[in-house]
């Protein structure tokens, strides 16, 4: 599956548009990580636990979106966007959405 956050895909032709696909998730880390984060807040630096949290959330939202696209029979998702929202402290909501399409290499149609 080809996934991009651009509206076009150079070298490929969009054959069919399958529509909007989306995936979301709200995740948090266990309380120990939150406590560790508040300590780290005294000395500064990267909060690895929260970076991990975002990575996991992003992957999950992304996988759900890809699952929808696969169900629709698409082989690419274009113009993917991410948004986040604040649900509560220590949690992250990630929402991924894009347009599922069927693409084929542009050269194939010429020959």
């Amino acid at each position, binding site marked *: 599956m080809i996934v991009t956050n651009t509206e076009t895909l150079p*070298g490929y032709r969009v054959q069919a548009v399958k529509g909007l696909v989306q995936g979301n998730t709200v995740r948090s880390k266990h309380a120990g990580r939150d406590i560790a984060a508040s300590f780290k*807040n005294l*000395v*500064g630096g990267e909060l690895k636990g929260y970076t991990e949290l975002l990575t996991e959330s992003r992957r999950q939202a992304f996988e759900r979106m890809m699952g929808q696209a696969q169900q629709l029979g698409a082989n690419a998702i274009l113009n993917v966007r*991410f948004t986040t929202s*604040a649900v509560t402290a220590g949690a992250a909501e990630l929402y991924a959405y894009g347009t599922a399409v069927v693409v084929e290499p542009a050269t194939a149609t010429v020959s």
Partner: protein
Amino acid sequence: MVELIINLGIFVFLLALGFFAGTTTERRHFRRLEEREEENRGFVVTQLKTFPGGSVVSPAPQIFMAEAVIASDYLKTFLSGIRKFFGGELKSYESLLERARREALLRIIDQARAAGYDTACNLRYETADIGGATNPKKGVVTVAVIATATAYRRKQAG
């Protein structure tokens, strides 16, 4: 009286901790960012929606995402608290945002390079609120940035 001294002692200790640990961490982070940016000079990143230079068909362009969460330190939080009372620019928080954005971008470049790409376009930054900045009573002062970009391989000139 003893209680006051202890409380004051803890406060001064935390400020000193923020000053020494926080400042060192930040300086070291900036130095590492500069080094890595220098290494990746050949990797072109734009935020254009088109594919400048043209993209080859195989490997097909692919989205890459990375995130970075940077925490404030006690000194920064304290100083910005004073700053917020008088109003104006919160310089100490600007550097946090800058670090998070540059770090996230470098992580995208690392991933894209490892996958064999040499250019990225349509770079977008998104911020998240994990620490709960919209709810200042509780929660920690953090900056969370998610960056996304589409990586592709440029067509060879000529």
